[in-house]
């Protein structure tokens, strides 16, 4: 697992906190709405106690609670929908991307240097949201409501009346059979009466008097006067006050009663508080259309989010962008707590402190004591009796039954107030107030009871929490019982078929194992929970397992890479394209350049495809290009598919920027040193009886002997002309330049005589390549040799047929793995310097010659025919390296290459062309 911000000792207590319900009157809700917050949200940033708290356990020992946090939430009478939770988790993960420019850790393992991000914030936010969105279950009480805050406003006509109404409402929700949700810890829930007073609008005298009345009725311990809204809302822009809500409201939307969109796109917009407009219209509507107390619907209802950007696999980025805009519009101007001064913040903090000290903790203390008394009496009486009778009936001893034997029964269910559950309740309460010693012993006893009754779900729950509390015990008197967790996970998953609980178990256990550096156990645990039913979960767990492998004492790099690929695959199935791409890129580091070509091709292909869907076209192109230029070991069909995808992506790139420079194409290979250049008209060496008096022709192989002969002949001619002396600047005429000829000087070409360039192509693929509109690419600098002052030197490029005519080969087919030469002609019509730069062509495949591969094709280029439009225009440069220089000492010791001017002819004025043919003599011997 990757490093986390929170240590496990912080994480677990924060994941299981005492839950408090809040029930507000309309008027009270209106007051908090002025701040764009519900009452529960208002309290959220202050819900952690800043000081230590003391309480007494049943044995009257003083127990210190540190960093206690409470969770206040509005009453929701419907359990969260699994689909909605899934969607929320998906949004949370896709909303959390690695920060740009984050410095990655470099891990060196053996031959590998890997850049790995040490933290995985998306996993942490997933885990946080997951743990918070767990629906309350009957077999445990950890997230059942312990207390209920009843909130009314001082501006109400009859506040005291309102309080009793709220109290009845709460009683109805808890005890009426119509509501099976939310769950309450014990039948007599603690009720805490809160009078909300708006300082800027309300009458302080009246509030005080109501508060006095409340104190009379409910006792000083059971009520509180909370003064808020000291600041008039229209002065909001005057001073800047820190907004402690922003960080909570983005992610913890599970408890939000708002209808704010919390999609991935909205997350950024919550932060932007630049606009201070307070639109009260929308606010009023929200209050009006809400039923009293606003608790009728869970915020996770599916129909609430019809936002297209939230659809799980919405690759449509245009839509996403537009919806981003919409949500931004909807959310800008929302400043939380605009009517609150810093004094108000302190008052809320004080209120929470007071509530916890005077209300909640004494209530918990009392409940623990009651439960403890019950248990002792039960232990004394029924327990001994029960076990005695059991012993009596089942023979000499009770066989310790293993979990495996009990698999066939999913276990019985206890009624909510069953005596067997009381010990679990007590354990949970102890756990919530961080009394882990007592919690452990209670869980341990509960576990035995449940196992005896074969109540498997309950037993698994007790095992899980027993393990966690054993781990959290101060001073660690016993080692962490990992096997408890294993049994719990197995039971949750196989017997109870409850993947959510199993997942919670795995997340906790893996985190604990990680803190003890037991990475391989953690990895095994994480991998075991990956299954077909949730791609997102599997992806995240696989990724964490991969991190486990790399964090081991001797890092397992290859296992890391492999699990990263698996995680990437799952991410892409879950529609998390960015995460998928990131996983593949991380794995690529391990496979790159190691000769694992099949794996490398596969990763490159996936990266290409993911980048394409994410519109990172450049990355897509380079990834696809990589597959093609490698000496590929793929089958022909596979290569065909790769090529088609490459062309498709390339086409898209070039469509986006039609005016950009022509792209460099990777295919086919050009053997540039085999390029031959021929000047002049084609001369047939033998035409009928005539035999040309030359040795040069493109159809002929280079023959060093005959060229030597011709050179000597030419030298003799020149010597005769110059009266026996060969001029020092004499060079033999060369019509055909190839890799054997001396190419160190600029060759001369004659205007109006064609220049033929022979380019050697090679197709490395097992599929044929079709080049269309193949022609040479050149640059021309016209020169007027007669004119003296020609300062203006124009540079011209291909496309001026009046300067240089270019021959175009309309179709040029290279079969699979074939080497083939193409002869391309230029017709210079002007004198000057010509530079042949390269070739330009459309690269394409031939139509319908291959079957469609198994991988499938990109959208839009599915099966079926490929018209010739499935090709891209691009170029390849011709760059010829000259011979290695070996003359001076410096050249000998270093590696230097001379120039090669084969492709840079100088076009000269017309010259007489002398051609001689000789008649073949037939010799009959």
């Amino acid at each position, binding site marked *: 697992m990757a490093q986390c911000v929170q240590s496990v000792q912080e994480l677990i207590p924060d994941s299981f906190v005492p839950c408090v319900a809040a029930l507000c009157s309309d008027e009270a809700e209106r007051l908090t709405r002025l701040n764009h917050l519900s009452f529960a949200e208002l309290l959220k940033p202050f819900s952690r106690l800043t000081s230590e708290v003391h309480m007494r356990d049943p044995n009257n020992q003083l127990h210190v609670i540190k960093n206690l946090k409470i969770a206040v939430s509005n009453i929701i009478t419907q359990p969260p929908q699994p689909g909605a939770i899934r969607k929320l988790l998906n949004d949370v993960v896709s909303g959390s991307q690695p920060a740009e420019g984050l410095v990655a850790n470099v891990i060196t393992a053996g031959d590998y240097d890997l850049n790995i991000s040490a933290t995985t914030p998306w996993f942490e936010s997933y885990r946080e949201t997951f743990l918070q969105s767990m629906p309350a279950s009957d077999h445990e009480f950890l997230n059942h409501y312990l207390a209920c805050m009843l909130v009314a406003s001082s501006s109400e006509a009859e506040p005291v009346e309102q309080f009793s109404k709220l109290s009845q409402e709460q009683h109805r929700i808890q005890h009426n059979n119509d509501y099976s949700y939310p769950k309450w810890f014990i039948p007599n829930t603690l009720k805490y009466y809160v009078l909300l007073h708006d300082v800027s609008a309300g009458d302080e005298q009246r509030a005080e008097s109501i508060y006095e009345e409340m104190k009379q009725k409910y006792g000083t311990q059971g009520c509180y006067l909370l003064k808020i809204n000291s600041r008039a809302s229209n002065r909001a822009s005057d001073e800047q006050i820190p907004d402690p809500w922003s960080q909570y409201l983005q992610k913890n939307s599970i408890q939000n009663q708002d209808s704010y969109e919390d999609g991935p796109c909205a997350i950024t917009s919550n932060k932007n508080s630049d606009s201070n407009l307070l639109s009260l219209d929308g606010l009023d509507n929200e209050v009006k259309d809400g039923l009293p107390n606003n608790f009728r619907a869970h915020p996770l209802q599916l129909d609430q989010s019809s936002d297209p950007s939230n659809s799980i696999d919405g690759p449509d980025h245009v839509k996403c962008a537009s919806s981003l805009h919409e949500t931004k519009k909807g959310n800008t101007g929302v400043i939380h707590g605009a009517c609150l001064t810093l004094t108000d913040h302190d008052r809320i903090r004080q209120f929470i402190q007071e509530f916890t000290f005077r209300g909640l903790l004494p209530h918990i203390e009392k409940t623990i004591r009651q439960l403890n008394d019950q248990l002792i009496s039960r232990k004394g009486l029924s327990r001994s009796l029960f076990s005695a009778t059991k012993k009596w009936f089942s023979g000499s001893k009770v066989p310790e039954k293993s979990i495996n034997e009990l698999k066939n029964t999913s276990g019985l269910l206890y009624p909510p107030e069953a005596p067997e559950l009381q010990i679990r309740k007590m354990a949970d309460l102890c756990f919530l107030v961080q009394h882990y010693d007592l919690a452990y012993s209670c869980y341990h006893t509960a576990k035995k009871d449940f196992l005896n009754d074969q109540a498997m779900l309950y037993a698994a729950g007790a095992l899980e929490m027993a393990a966690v509390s054993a781990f959290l015990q101060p001073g660690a008197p016993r080692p962490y019982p990992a096997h408890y967790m294993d049994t719990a996970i197995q039971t949750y998953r196989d017997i109870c078929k409850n993947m959510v609980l199993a997942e919670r178990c795995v997340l906790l256990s893996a985190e604990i194992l990680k803190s003890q550096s037991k990475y391989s156990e953690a990895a095994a645990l994480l991998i075991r929970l990956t299954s077909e039913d949730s791609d997102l979960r599997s992806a995240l767990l696989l990724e964490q397992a991969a991190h486990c492998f790399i964090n081991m004492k*001797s890092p*397992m*790099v290859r*296992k890391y*890479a492999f699990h990263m690929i698996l995680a990437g695959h799952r991410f892409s199935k879950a529609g998390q394209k960015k995460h998928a791409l990131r996983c593949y890129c991380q794995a690529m580091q391990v*496979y790159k350049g*190691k*000769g*694992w070509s099949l*794996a490398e091709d596969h990763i490159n292909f996936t990266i290409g495809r993911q980048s394409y869907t994410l519109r990172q076209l450049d990355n897509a192109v380079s990834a696809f290009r990589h597959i093609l230029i490698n000496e590929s070991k793929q089958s022909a069909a596979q290569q065909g598919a790769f090529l088609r995808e490459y062309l498709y992506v390339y086409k898209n790139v070039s469509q986006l920027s039609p005016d950009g420079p022509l792209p460099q194409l990777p295919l086919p290979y050009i053997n540039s040193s085999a390029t031959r250049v021929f000047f002049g008209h084609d001369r047939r060496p033998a035409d009928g009886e005539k035999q040309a008096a030359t040795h040069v022709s493109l159809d002929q192989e280079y023959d060093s002997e005959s060229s030597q002969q011709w050179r000597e002949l030419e030298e003799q001619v020149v010597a005769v002309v110059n009266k026996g002396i060969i001029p020092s600047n004499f060079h033999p005429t060369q019509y055909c330049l190839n890799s054997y000829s001396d190419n160190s000087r600029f060759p001369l070409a004659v205007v109006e005589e064609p220049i033929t360039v022979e380019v050697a192509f090679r197709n490395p693929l097992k599929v044929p390549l079709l080049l269309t509109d193949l022609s040479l690419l050149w640059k021309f600098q016209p020169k007027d040799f007669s004119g003296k002052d020609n300062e203006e030197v124009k540079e011209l490029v291909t496309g001026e047929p009046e300067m240089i005519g270019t021959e175009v080969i309309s179709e040029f087919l290279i079969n699979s793995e074939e080497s083939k030469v193409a002869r391309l002609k230029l017709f210079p019509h002007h004198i000057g310097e010509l530079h042949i730069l390269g070739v330009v062509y459309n690269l394409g495949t031939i139509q319908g010659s291959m079957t469609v591969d198994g991988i499938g094709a990109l959208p839009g280029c599915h099966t079926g025919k490929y018209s010739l439009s499935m090709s891209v225009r691009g170029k390849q440069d011709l760059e010829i390296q000259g011979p290695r220089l070996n003359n001076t000492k410096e050249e000998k010791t270093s590696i230097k290459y001379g120039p090669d001017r084969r492709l840079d002819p100088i076009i000269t004025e017309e010259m007489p062309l002398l051609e001689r043919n000789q008649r073949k003599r037939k010799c009959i011997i």
Partner: protein
Amino acid sequence: MAVCVAVIAKENYPLYIRSAPTENELKFHYMVHTSLDVVDEKISAMGKALVDQRELYLGLLYPTEDYKMFRKLHNSYTDVMCNPFYNPGDRIQSRAFDNMVTSMMIQVC
């Protein structure tokens, strides 16, 4: 008998890799690559135990029966190494080696 035979250089790149069912080659490549971690683990464990250094067989990555197979493969690999024209670190393209691997694989099909 064997579905995939691989010889891996000590720098972790494949010198030779072949699998019998050709349609799922990618999977085998991934598996072989990932199992290198197990090999690493075994080697580091060996160093501690100080066992006979001449014994090159590390044991099984996964329970199968054969040990002779490794001998055979290793002998063949030694032959390849003895070939003066073979450049250590290059991909193995020897026909004799190929035939030997084929004979190992044929038995399964």
